[in-house]
């Protein structure tokens, strides 16, 4: 059978995924393919590359180019207070329970450029929990991690973030958390003084601590079922009993092997609690 262009492209991407794993240690074999193909095609056109072979040469001769590729292929689009009802639910349903612990540990898995991290920190501060909370913010991508703790976001997004903040039950003036400067907004660095940032790959790395709350939102949609299951088990191993798990609006624990050990706290916001 003669392979058409699409089939050839897919075959070459599979080979590239194996080579990337061998060379750089990043394993994309469990990523949902429709998105991977789309991201790679997008990257090829952005970089004016004509073929996967040109991409290959670039990736294996230049590690900066690879970092750039990694950042584009793993989606790093995020916003503050994405789905404000989720953050409102954290504030009203989860934080009051967490406040009964003397010390709180939270894992923000797939924190990307830090918008969710700062949203969470603002919530904790307003509920009086920030000083006794440690947040572990991780991402596969070292480049975005550098930005995550800086808290510098585009000023053009502030109107949308401000309405998100109030919809999430914000208690202060949102603008009291940042200073505007030349088109950007720099958030108060004391918000992240108890934040630890480091690279962690959900596809290959193991559990590193136990948490009262794990947030992993809009990351699992990019994984196939097997990899999703791996990540759910990883979260389960990393969760204290009665701990909480917050997923993206369209992500579910329902199909997972660990689901029987979790109860839905808030169905529409996909917040789960581990059983005792």
């Amino acid at each position, binding site marked *: 059978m003669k392979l058409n262009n699409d089939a050839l492209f897919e075959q070459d991407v599979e080979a590239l995924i194996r080579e990337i794993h061998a060379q750089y240690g990043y394993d994309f074999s469990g990523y*949902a393919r429709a998105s991977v193909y789309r991201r790679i095609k997008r990257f090829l056109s952005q970089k004016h590359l004509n073929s996967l072979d040109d991409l290959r040469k670039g990736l294996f001769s230049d590690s900066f180019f690879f970092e750039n590729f990694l950042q584009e292929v793993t989606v790093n689009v995020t916003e503050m207070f994405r789905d404000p009802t989720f953050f409102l639910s954290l504030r009203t349903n989860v934080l009051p329970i967490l406040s009964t612990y003397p010390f709180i540990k939270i894992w923000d898995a797939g924190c990307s450029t830090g918008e969710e991290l700062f949203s969470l920190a603002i919530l904790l501060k307003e509920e009086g929990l920030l000083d006794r909370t440690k947040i572990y913010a991780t991402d596969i991508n070292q480049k975005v991690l550098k930005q995550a703790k800086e808290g510098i976001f585009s000023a053009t997004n502030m109107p949308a973030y401000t309405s998100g903040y109030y919809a999430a039950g914000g208690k202060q003036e949102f603008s009291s958390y940042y200073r505007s400067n030349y088109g950007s907004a720099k958030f108060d660095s004391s918000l992240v003084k108890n934040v630890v940032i480091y690279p962690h790959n959900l596809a290959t790395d193991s559990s590193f601590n136990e948490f009262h709350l794990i947030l992993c939102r809009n990351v699992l949609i990019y994984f196939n079922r097997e990899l999703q299951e791996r990540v759910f088990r990883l979260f389960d191993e990393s969760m204290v009993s009665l701990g909480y798990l917050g997923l993206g609006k369209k992500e579910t624990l329902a*199909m997972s092997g660990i689901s029987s050990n979790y109860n839905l706290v808030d169905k529409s916001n996909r917040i789960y609690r581990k059983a005792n």
Partner: protein
Amino acid sequence: MAAASNVIVIGGSWGGIQASLTILKNLPANYSIPIILVLHRLRTTEGNLQEVFGKRLALKAVEIEEKEALLPGYVYLAPANYHVLIEKDHTFSLDDSELENYSRPSIDVTFTSAAEVFKDRTIGILLSGASKDGSSGLKYIFEKRGTAIVQDPEEAEIDTMPLAAIHSIPGCSVLNLEQIQAFLLSLHDH
């Protein structure tokens, strides 16, 4: 249930809800081809499109869940704030990457993805809308020898979207809603 051999993808924005209700309302509950509907909506509203369509159609209207399999008898609604992609095993993937044509969901993204999987068995229909989203996706369907249908701009509530598509795909079929409805009924495999 057997995997579907073809797929219908419909896109629209302003005027697209009414137009898609019109072309879908007479399709029977056991309609043999899965239908994916990508409508632009305000990013901030949590639409109840599922209710709007569920009440008026014999087909089952559901908001897409990731990894869900495409089945006949359903109208799959793209959720707010996610792009919809289709995997080779005929399941859905969701994607929250950059807006395309100022839109998420983007019609181009879903049309292109459908054509990559279903090739010439893709039926793309672009309806009324005040955006240029959808043209390049419909063109891709056409290039894969699928069926490219555009709502007659004379009849569309807003003609920007149909006109952009007609301009970029000279070979597409320009039909009014009544003709599109009849065409869809003719595809039904009893």
